[in-house]
């Protein structure tokens, strides 16, 4: 059948994180899915897009009602072998952030690189 995908055991997963910390559960739930995928042996790339780039602002704290937030989960990424963190360059500019000032090492990607990212991973999940 045309376009049937041939799957390797650890197909590459791209998780696109489009939401900011605290305001909704999307970022947390997206990261949880990414961590589990990595724990299951998949190679995972995280792309922070739009307001998602603010997930990497340093100095975050718990929420006012004691919500855990996502900074602690992000600190765990390295332990799960998720070391490919990409941030949308235009979004960094929009939010006045510099890639060097983020809480974790990340690579800025320009808009022109985005289509290749979605094309090159065997599964793309957006949160």
């Amino acid at each position, binding site marked *: 059948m045309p376009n049937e995908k041939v799957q390797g055991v650890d197909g590459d997963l791209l998780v696109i994180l489009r939401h900011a910390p605290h305001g909704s559960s999307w970022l947390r739930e997206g990261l949880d*899915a990414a961590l589990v995928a990595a724990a299951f042996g998949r190679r995972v790339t995280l792309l922070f897009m739009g307001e998602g780039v603010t997930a990497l602002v340093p100095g975050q704290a718990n929420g006012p009602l004691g919500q855990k937030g996502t900074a602690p989960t992000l600190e765990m990424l390295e332990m799960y072998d998720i070391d490919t963190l990409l941030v949308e360059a235009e979004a960094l500019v929009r939010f006045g952030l510099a890639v060097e000032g983020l809480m974790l090492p990340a690579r800025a990607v320009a808009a022109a690189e985005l289509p290749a990212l979605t094309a090159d991973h065997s599964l793309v999940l957006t949160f």
Partner: protein
Amino acid sequence: MRYAILLMGAPYSSQAAHSALRFARALVGRGHRLEGVFFYHDGVHNAARLATPPQDEPHLVDGWAALAAEHGVPLQVCIAAALRRGLLDEREAARHGKQGHSIEPPFELTGLGQLVDLGLHCDRLVTFGP
């Protein structure tokens, strides 16, 4: 082809669940296999046992259950997302000392590993968000 659906919208509040159920029926109608529906984020509300829409409105919970009964589709509900939102099956209710339960078969509480598994083994995974 082998399909999986990731559903992250609650019934009624947005169209996500409606679209997902329509899509599920259409793909099965075309002869594909639906290997599983994974309910995450607010999608876990699609498993709410006590959902009682008016008679003349779509009953999403029953719709998913019918799909499971007719085509053997596993209905997998993320346990962490479900518990946070008050959706517990009998086992979890007992475990946490709660009276009553809000999820029953064919819906099954599982971990995110099941979503990863579906993604690995299916030809297409389609996400429906709110």
